[in-house]
């Protein structure tokens, strides 16, 4: 498939935004349920939520460039019963508003306990809003992943690993950004986030490699014989109905050499996984100050660029069966 930059930015940016929110809420839960010493850093949650919403907004903005008729985009919420794309269009603003509400609740200090759990933990408005935003975030992850995962003709995408990878890659980049943000604001949470970011980056790496191994072994279901219905091993295209290319030759082919695709593969393995892992492990050894911010910022930037390359490869890797009809001009 042809990787469109609008979609690359959309999926990587909203993934990072969702991951960043999950990181914020994880931090809050750990403190509120006394799994780690409590800090009072409302600013961190407010600014973190703002960054997360900003990432989602930029992603949404990028997605409009994918549309031929962006002025009609509002119509795309109509078919939520059947279309994962429509479901994503609904889940995205809900997630955005839920995260904004979560940030606003922290900003207005709605942290007095509404009720108590049997264990004596106070449940406040931020926790409830955060829980709702978490559900929305995961719903959005599933919608985004299923847009690609549900197309059975694209065998490289038609696997649960697609959804798992969207969740893990988004979460990993979000936690890395949370590490940089917390280092910038000088909170005590930096090492906590760095450890989680290492965990998610490693897990995402394992699952991404798993999907690459799976895709390497894929046997295409369609071949020339079933495409034109002539049973012969030597079918060659001589003309494709037009001489100078068409939508079919532009949308479904990445048009790059195999070596370029392989290079992108190694670039994303290096930038999205190995570089941030090394930098995050380094950051664990730094106690505080400017240097931990610089290291974690580089980790976040490298990982984001790596994920852009990963998404490019994700598209380029998928081979559409219609390509059988567009093999050569002659």
């Amino acid at each position: 498939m042809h990787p469109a930059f609008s979609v690359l930015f959309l999926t990587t940016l909203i993934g990072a935004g969702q991951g960043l929110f999950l990181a914020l809420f994880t931090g809050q839960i750990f403190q509120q349920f006394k799994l780690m010493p409590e800090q009072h850093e409302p600013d961190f949650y407010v600014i973190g939520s703002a960054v997360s919403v900003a990432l989602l907004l930029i992603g949404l903005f990028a997605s409009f460039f994918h549309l031929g008729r962006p002025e009609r985009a509002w119509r795309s919420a109509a078919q939520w019963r059947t279309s994962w794309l429509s479901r994503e269009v609904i889940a995205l603003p809900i997630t955005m508003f839920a995260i904004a509400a979560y940030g606003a609740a922290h900003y207005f200090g709605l942290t007095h306990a509404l009720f108590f759990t049997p264990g004596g933990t106070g449940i406040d408005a931020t926790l409830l809003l955060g829980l709702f935003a978490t559900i929305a975030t995961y719903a959005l992850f599933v919608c985004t992943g299923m847009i690609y995962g549900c197309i059975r003709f694209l065998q490289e995408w038609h696997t649960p690993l697609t959804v798992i990878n969207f969740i893990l890659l988004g979460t990993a980049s979000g936690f890395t950004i949370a590490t940089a943000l917390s280092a910038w604001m000088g909170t005590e949470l930096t090492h906590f986030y760095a450890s989680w970011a290492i965990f998610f980056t490693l897990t995402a790496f394992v699952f991404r490699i798993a999907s690459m191994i799976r895709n390497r072994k894929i046997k295409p279901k369609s071949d020339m014989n079933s495409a034109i219905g002539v049973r012969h091993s030597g079918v060659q295209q001589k003309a494709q109905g037009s001489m100078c290319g068409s939508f079919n030759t532009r949308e479904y082919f990445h048009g790059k050499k195999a070596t370029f695709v392989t290079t992108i593969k190694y670039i994303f393995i290096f930038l999205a996984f190995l570089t941030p892992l090394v930098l995050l492990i380094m950051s664990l050894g730094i106690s505080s100050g400017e240097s931990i911010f610089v290291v974690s910022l580089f980790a976040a930037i490298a990982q984001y660029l790596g994920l852009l390359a990963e998404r490019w490869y994700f598209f380029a890797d998928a081979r559409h069966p219609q390509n059988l009809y567009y093999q050569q001009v002659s």
Partner: protein
Amino acid sequence: MVDKNPYDANPTGTFFNRVQTFEIGTYPKTETVHFPKSCLHCEEPPCVPVCPTGASYKREEDGIVLVDYDKCIGCKYCSWACPYGARELDEQQKVMKKCTLCVDRIYDESLPEEERKPACVMSCPTSARLFGDVHDEDSEVSIAIRENGGYQLMPEWGTKPANHYLPRRKTRIKIHEDELERVDNPLSKEERKRHNAPGEGPSLDDMTSW
């Protein structure tokens, strides 16, 4: 339908129907297959449920798969979901286009009844294209599919295309080598020599039983 840069570099356009050419086998044993390719109006169209706006739809009454050009947002998602690549984005109107089965012609009462057919069927000089109701067992197309071994493209995806393709028709005669030359030809030189020898060869007694 758009025709972009028609007389310039990189001309491109939207097609409802492309005729592609394939060569089968290696020289000198080759055959050429001209292969018309349009929307197959699947019975289970995978492009329809993925449409976020409902612009893509399959008509209840006749099963034609159509795009509402006023609702389409040009997101191209349906084109990903069609294994045949039948859908193309119109570069000027920025909406999805595909074969409509000439839905405007086939119901046009101002046309004589025999002309209420898609343009491609009307114009085919060798009448290679047939048009009719595949659900009507006695229609011309159903009979052709049944009797002549009509098949669907990429049946492995379960899309159940309504459009079927008929196998190429060839005239073949089967000749065995012994049919080219009679083994027991009594008029051959050798046989005549043998028969003419006195006391040899068949007599009337060999031919008939009295």
